[in-house]
C-alpha cells in the first residue's frame, strides 16, 4: 500500500466537468458558447425575480446564486461522479440541471415551512434565502452542498417528530 497525500480536486463539480469534457473532445466550442448564453440569461431571469435588474452587484450576486443551484443539482443527481455529470450536462444543458437543483430547493422550502410554522417568512423568502446560502463565488470555497445536507437533516427530522409518524 502506498502512503502519500492524495491530491483531490476541490473545485466546483461543474467546472471540472466542463474542463474534462472539453479536454476529451466531448464538448466543442459551439456547445460551450450555448451554455454561456444560457447561463447569462438565467442570471438575468433570477435577478429579475428576486432582486432588480438595475444594479450591477445584484446581477453579479444572481449569477453566483444560479451557479450554486446548478452545482447542487449536478452534485445530487450525478451522485458526485464526473462521468455521470458529463452525461447530464450533455443531455440537459444548464436549464435542465438548474431545474434539478431548484426542485431540491422547493422540497427544502416545503419541509422548512412545515417545521417553522410560527415564522412569518413566505415561501418566496425561503427560496431566496436558500438560493443565497448555496451560492458559489468563483475563487472561494463552496460550502453549498454541506449547507444543503445540514438543512435537509435539520428540517426533515423536525418534521418527522411533529407528524407523529416516527
Amino acid at each position, binding site marked *: 500500500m502506498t502512503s502519500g497525500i492524495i491530491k483531490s480536486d476541490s473545485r466546483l463539480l461543474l467546472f471540472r466537468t466542463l474542463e474534462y469534457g472539453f479536454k476529451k473532445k466531448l464538448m466543442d466550442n459551439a456547445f460551450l458558447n450555448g451554455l454561456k448564453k444560457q447561463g447569462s440569461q438565467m442570471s438575468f431571469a433570477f435577478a429579475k425575480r428576486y432582486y432588480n435588474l438595475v444594479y450591477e452587484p445584484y446581477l453579479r450576486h444572481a449569477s453566483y446564486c444560479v451557479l450554486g443551484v446548478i452545482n447542487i443539482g449536478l452534485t445530487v443527481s450525478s451522485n458526485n461522479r464526473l462521468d455521470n455529470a458529463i452525461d447530464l450536462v450533455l443531455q440537459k444543458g444548464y436549464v435542465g440541471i438548474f*431545474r434539478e437543483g431548484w426542485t431540491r430547493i422547493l422540497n427544502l422550502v416545503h419541509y422548512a415551512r412545515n417545521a417553522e410554522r410560527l415564522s412569518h417568512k413566505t415561501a418566496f423568502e425561503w427560496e431566496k434565502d436558500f438560493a443565497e446560502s448555496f451560492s458559489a463565488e468563483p475563487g472561494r470555497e463552496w460550502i453549498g452542498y454541506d449547507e444543503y445536507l445540514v438543512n435537509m437533516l435539520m428540517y426533515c427530522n423536525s418534521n418527522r417528530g411533529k407528524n407523529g409518524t416516527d
Partner: protein
Amino acid sequence: MGNDYEAISKVSFSRAVKQIVEMSSGMAEKAIEAIADRKGDEFVKNILEHLPPVKIAAILRQHDFSCPSIISWILTPKIIMDVLKVDPLFWKSIYDRNQSDNFFQIQNDALDLINSMLLNEEDRDKQGAILQHISADSLSLLYLFLPFVGWQVKKSQTLDFEDPEFDFGTADHLFEMIRWADPYTAKKIIDFIYSTKVPLFYYITDLWSEAFDYFDTDQDYTSVEAVMFVPVD
C-alpha cells in the same frame, strides 16, 4: 505622438475612475478632484465624456443643492441630459411600501439634483443651452416636469433678488430661473401643469417604468425565465 498619448491616458483614466466608482463614489470624486488639480478642467471634461452616465449620477447623488459636487461645475449640457435620463433608475425606495413619504422624498431629490446643476450655474447662456438640450428629449423633459407636479403658478412673478417672493432652492425659484434662461421651456412647463393633472404616485411610477424600458437590456431571457423555475417531476 503627444496627441495619441493624451487620448490613451484619457481613456485609461476614465476606466480607472469607473472602477473606483463601483467601490465608493466619494472616493471617485476625490480622485477626479486630484486629476483636476494636476491636469486642468478640460482634461477632466474629456474624462467625464468617456464615463457612463450612471456613474456620474452616482457621484452627483451623494450631494444636495446646498453643497453641490465639484463635478457639477464641469458637466456639459449633453452629459446633464443623460444624467437626468438615468436618475430614475436609482429610486430604490419605490419598492419600499413601508415608507409613506417616499414619493415626496423622490420629488425633493429630483428638485435638488436639477437645482444643483442649473441654479449654481452663473452663466446664463449655458443655462439656456442646458435647458434646450433637456427639452429636446422627451424622457429628460418628463424628469424636468417632476418637481412641478402639484405645483401652482403664482400670478405676480418678479425677479427681485433684493426682496424675493420665493425661498431659495424651491420650485418657484427654479421656475423663475427657467423663465429667464429659456422662456420656451417655461411655456412647456405651464402647458404641462394645466393639461395633465395626475397624482404624484402615478407620475413617478410611470417615469420610472419609462426610464426602465429605455435602458432595458437587449438580452432575451423570457424564454428561459418561463422554464427554469418549474420543478422536475
